């Protein structure tokens, strides 16, 4: 049986190149590449050996390839000192990566129609998802967008992999002058979609989930929360998720996600501890089950068992 457990590796950079607003870093990391399933991420240490930056930076894995035993590409924007350091890495520099981490996108058993909606950096996890879906014979339609053209991530790959690609920008520099959430419904109707996957900021995930719920279409979302270790230790990345048992738990995005069924996430309560969450002040109600069980994925038509490597 394939070993899916994440590994920690100190690995050389194979290639570093700018792609529009983002930096694309490819590292030689066979252990990560062979275990990777779409939707997972790497947590990267930043700074040199005596770095004062203690927190790892999480990045969706954009692509894995078999060259050099297995390479892993991730894309990121410079947002602070840590990502600035990473953007200065060049071929043969070493970086410390842990991965692949997190719950991957569940995949349909059957060749169904899938709409993939991504905003800003969210496109990064959807590109490998599209490859996995295509291998299963699924039809893929993309909606990708950002504030401006340079911030759309994965457009070229989406063009190749998708039956269609709808682009949106808020400034009108590319595609429709709109938000991704404005266009998803039309694409879902035209496909017509059996499943929708969404990745990006919370407002997009909330809107797509609401649309899917009203049309009876399952939605899988990949959540971006601040993560600091990626391995489930620090408890910094929690968000309120309601399980099949109707109990809301503050679950860790890094190990219980980042992919969740959209309707499980209490989007309106993200950033708070809902009063009725397990262990919150309003929780102390009798006749609740004692056990803090692991979240379960109750979507009947999807399975998380894609084990191929792109």
């Amino acid at each position: 049986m394939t070993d899916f457990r994440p590994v920690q590796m100190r690995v050389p950079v194979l290639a570093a190149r700018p792609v529009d607003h983002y930096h694309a870093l490819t590292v030689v990391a066979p252990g990560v590449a062979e275990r990777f399933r779409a939707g997972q991420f790497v947590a990267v240490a930043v700074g040199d050996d005596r770095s004062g930056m203690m927190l790892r930076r999480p990045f969706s894995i954009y692509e894995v390839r078999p060259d050099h035993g297995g390479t892993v590409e991730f894309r990121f924007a410079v947002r602070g000192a840590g990502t600035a350091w990473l953007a200065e890495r060049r071929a043969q520099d070493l970086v410390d990566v842990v991965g692949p981490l997190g719950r991957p996108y569940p995949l349909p058993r059957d060749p169904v129609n899938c709409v993939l909606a991504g905003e800003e950096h969210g496109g990064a996890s959807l590109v490998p998802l599209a490859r996995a879906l295509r291998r299963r014979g699924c039809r893929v339609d993309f909606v990708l967008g950002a504030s401006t053209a340079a911030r759309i991530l994965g457009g070229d790959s989406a063009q190749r992999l998708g039956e269609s690609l709808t682009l949106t920008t808020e400034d009108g520099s590319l595609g429709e002058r709109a938000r991704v959430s404005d266009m998803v419904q039309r694409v879902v109707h035209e496909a017509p979609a059996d499943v929708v996957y969404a990745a990006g900021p919370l407002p997009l995930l909330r809107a797509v989930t609401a649309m899917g719920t009203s049309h009876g279409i399952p939605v899988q979302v990949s959540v971006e929360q601040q993560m600091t270790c990626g391995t489930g230790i620090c408890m910094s990345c929690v968000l309120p998720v309601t399980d099949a048992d109707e109990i809301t738990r503050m679950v860790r995005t890094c190990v219980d996600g980042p992919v969740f069924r959209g309707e499980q996430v209490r989007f309106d309560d993200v950033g708070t501890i809902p009063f009725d969450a397990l262990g919150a002040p309003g929780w102390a109600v009798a006749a609740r089950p004692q056990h803090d069980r692991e979240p379960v994925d109750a979507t009947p038509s999807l399975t998380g068992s894609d084990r191929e490597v792109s």
Partner: protein
Amino acid sequence: MTPDLRVDLAGVRLPNPVLTAAGCAGTGRELALFTDVSRLGAVVTKSLMSGPRAGTPVPRVAETPSGVLSAIGLQGPGLEVFLDRDLPWLVSQGARAVVSIAGGSPDEYAELAQRLDGQAGVTAVEVNLASANQADHGRYFVGDRSSAVDVVRAVRAATGLPVFAKLSSAMDSVGGTVALAEAVVEAGADVLSMINSVRGMVVDTTTARPALAGAAAGLSGPAIRPIALATVHDVHQALPQVPVIGMGGIHSGDDALQFVLAGASAVGVGTASLHDPGACGRILRELTGLLEERGWSRISDVVGRAHDGAPLRTGGFGRPH
């Protein structure tokens, strides 16, 4: 020759001095993917309360220079879930479990300690004294000597397990920490774990609000290491017969050895595991190598060695040896 790393903490015999620090090992399973938990001296659990606890809203963590500021709010499943689900796993792995407990009152601590008494697989109980005292408007027990003493005394009376008291530093002064250490030992603590995170803050200048949602945030990581070392040093000087587990920003074997020389019989690895999930195993290897290089055959021989030849303190009496 491989040095003898065995330690004896007031009768708690461990194969080596490298422990996880409370709250930095997940349930043990998360860390076990990267470091062999059975080979560590012990796994100290995240602090458990009597029931499940949802913790503090996000954002919970901010990066600071060589440190991490965090306010998790003791999120956890509660003791019963731990006993049903997590403790059996630790036992099955051959790990030694030190169970950290936290409560809002001395009675709650005592109930937890009593529940742990006689539980197979529990090596010791660690009393987290940085938990908020609900009877005293949320003040930390650690900041209040009489409350801390009440908690330790209640735990001591409730369990036959070895009792580790987890203290912070600089709540008032180092002298205050020594006095607090003396008081909790007097109340029945067998071992002192120090230091807990140090109160800290980061302000977001865009929102003009504290960067973390929780007001009570703790600073950890290498930024607090010199503070922790001095605290361990001073407490060992005052209480040389009481074993100390030293912690606070330990990132390398050299860091660990500094704590041992300052007077720690064992060390706890905390924030380092966020940065390097293999840190505990690595630090154990590095520490072993440093002892070998120096020809120090037994770690217990060098505990507190930094005190030897130290200037005499007031009264003219050197440290008893």
